[in-house]
């Protein structure tokens, strides 16, 4: 049991009883304080997770050059298993971690340098698949105000911060290793996922506006690592192409058996309120409450998570006078996952705190982070436009993450022999723009993109350069 007390600095004289001013307990935590090393460790872990995920989850430079769109077709079978049945060339891309270059070319990473900037570091670290030309920069001036309306925070200069907006961050890393065995796709797929969301209460939003004497919010985060065995197949449906105007329809299914090796989970709800007396003056006390759970699972606590997932897809390949239209819809990550978490429940308020070890708690997750995808593309083969060597790809996609999140993109690619130029735009947590070029030399291609995205926690539109090596299959 821990009592909450506001501790005065030792060098301060005893508080005068008849003082007419009753300041609030210090509501703010500075950058470097006792316990900072632990905070730094936590921040480092988060940055590493962001970095790891950003490279792995990064779209390749071809996609980024087309505004982030995923082109419907055999190269997108991970999104829609039915695409695997469509004849054509698959692609395997390796995105170069150009963001690492900033460690030697820019000084915002280095806390000892004059250019150190935590916001720039976060922006670049969460986009290591590209070299950011103008990462978000911290504000020039932060003003923290306390008045009768409560606490308020305003910013001047630098990036416009959106700290009170609901924030969701998800990265997934999948490394499928396998191939086609007859009609079956078989793969062993190590995976990691990291999902975090913060939902501020309306009073917290007012802190960054008119001010508020209270703040509340919900923080959830979980990270998982494991290995999946995927078995999938895709096949043409027995539908008469003639009856569909020459269109062919495909279906695909992919089942996955999951073994969860490690998991960390946090789920907390909190609220703080500056106490006011009957006249409305602050009394100098902060009333707060916090409740939630955190836990660990997998090998760290001697258990293994297990589960199964299914991805289902439908696709159609429709010949047209201008080329071939490919369309598909899919649902992914349908399934169940069971973990045994060593869980701790925490409850705390201004008068008491308690921490209860709940022991191993079975957590059954049904259909978490389910994705719905739709993809559409028109491919005009090279030469069909009457210009020798010229081909065009137009593509659009949409994704809904049922746990929160929506993205859509559209882009175009024009090929001239081995060369390609691209452009596109989309919405992906903010505006996404891209232009790019590509060069194909036999089975190997090089794609370069100038891309733009919304920086985390800000309205800043950052520009960066990405590059990928493309290996044709």
């Amino acid at each position, binding site marked *: 049991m821990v009592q909450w007390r506001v501790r*005065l600095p030792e060098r301060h004289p005893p508080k005068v009883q008849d003082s007419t001013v009753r300041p*609030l307990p210090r*509501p703010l935590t500075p950058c470097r304080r006792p316990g900072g090393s632990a905070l730094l460790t936590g921040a480092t872990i988060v940055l590493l997770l962001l970095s790891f995920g950003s490279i792995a989850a990064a779209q390749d430079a071809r996609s980024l050059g087309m505004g982030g769109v995923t082109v419907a077709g055999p190269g997108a079978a991970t999104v829609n298993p039915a695409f695997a049945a469509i004849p054509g060339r698959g692609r395997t891309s390796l995105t170069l971690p150009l963001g690492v270059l900033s460690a030697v070319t820019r000084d915002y990473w280095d806390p000892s340098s004059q250019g*150190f900037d935590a916001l720039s570091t976060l922006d670049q670290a969460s986009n290591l698949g590209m070299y950011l030309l103008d990462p978000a920069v911290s504000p*020039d001036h*932060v003003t*923290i105000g306390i008045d009768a309306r409560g606490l308020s925070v305003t910013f001047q200069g630098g990036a416009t911060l959106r700290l009170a907006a609901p924030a969701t961050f998800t990265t997934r890393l999948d490394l499928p290793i396998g191939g086609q065995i007859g009609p079956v796709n078989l793969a062993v797929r190590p995976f990691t996922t990291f999902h975090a969301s913060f939902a501020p209460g309306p009073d917290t939003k007012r802190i*960054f506006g008119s001010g508020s004497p209270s*703040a509340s919010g919900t923080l959830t985060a979980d990270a998982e690592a494991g290995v999946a065995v995927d078995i999938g197949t895709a096949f043409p449906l027995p539908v008469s192409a003639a009856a569909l105007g020459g269109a062919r329809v495909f279906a695909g299914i992919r089942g996955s058996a999951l073994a969860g090796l490690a998991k960390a989970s946090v789920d907390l709800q909190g609220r703080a309120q500056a106490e006011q007396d009957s006249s409305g003056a602050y009394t100098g006390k902060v009333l707060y409450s916090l409740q939630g759970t955190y836990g660990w699972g997998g090998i760290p606590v001697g258990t293994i998570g297990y589960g199964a997932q299914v991805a289902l897809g439908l696709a159609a390949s429709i010949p047209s006078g201008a080329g071939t239209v490919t369309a598909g819809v899919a649902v992914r990550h349908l399934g169940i996952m069971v973990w045994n978490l060593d869980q701790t429940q925490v409850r*705390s308020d201004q008068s008491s705190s308690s921490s209860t070890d709940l022991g191993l708690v079975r957590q059954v997750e049904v259909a978490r982070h389910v994705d719905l995808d739709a993809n559409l593309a028109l491919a005009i083969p090279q030469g069909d436009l009457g210009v020798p060597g010229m081909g065009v790809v137009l593509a659009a996609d949409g994704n809904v993450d049922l746990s929160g999140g929506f993205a859509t993109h559209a882009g175009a690619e024009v090929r001239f022999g081995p060369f390609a130029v691209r452009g596109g735009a989309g919405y992906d947590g903010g505006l996404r723009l891209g232009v790019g070029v590509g060069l194909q030399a036999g089975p190997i291609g090089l794609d370069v993109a100038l891309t733009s995205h919304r920086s985390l926690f800000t309205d800043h539109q950052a520009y960066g350069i990405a590059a990928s090596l493309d290996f044709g299959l």
Partner: protein
Amino acid sequence: MIPRQTRTLGLLALAPTLALLLAGCSRHTALTVQADLVAFLDPASKQATVTYTGGSPTIDLPPNSAEPQAGTLVDLQKLGVPSNALQSISGLDLDLAATVQPDSAISAGSTTLYVADATATNVFQSRYAVGTVSIPPLPASRASPVVGSFQLDAQQHPAALTLVQGGSFRLGIQLQGTSPSGGQAKIDITKLLVSVSLPPGWGLP
């Protein structure tokens, strides 16, 4: 291991903590903490009727703040200024807004800001005076606005700056003028805004 209290406070104060993290984790971000002390005053200190004498009357703001061991105690740490930033404070600004309704006219007026140490028995001693601004005459029996902006000049008052950098100090404002007769004055303080600014890079070694 982070003490539980620290973890709890950090989670609950997420938004302002992030703001301070940003302010303290880049070398070009300056931080200003503004606190309207009116929000902390009890009603008797915000709105009061005080007695003044004829001749050269003085009226203390907030009222009664010249009493021994009283005064307007300001604890910057409790207002959100990190302890490791106190030594970086380069100055202090104070904006006053009030209305004063004296029984008899007070002319040739001025207001003076006093900054004293936290244990001062009387804030309104000349050695604590750090700034004076003129105010227009206050007519009799009519509520007149009294506004003033004070800036602590660190060059002229290094001792006062040292007090501010200590994090805990007292301040008061005294209205002075001339009046043919004494009487009572109704005071209504609407703003007592204290601002301290930290230079860019204050949170970094």
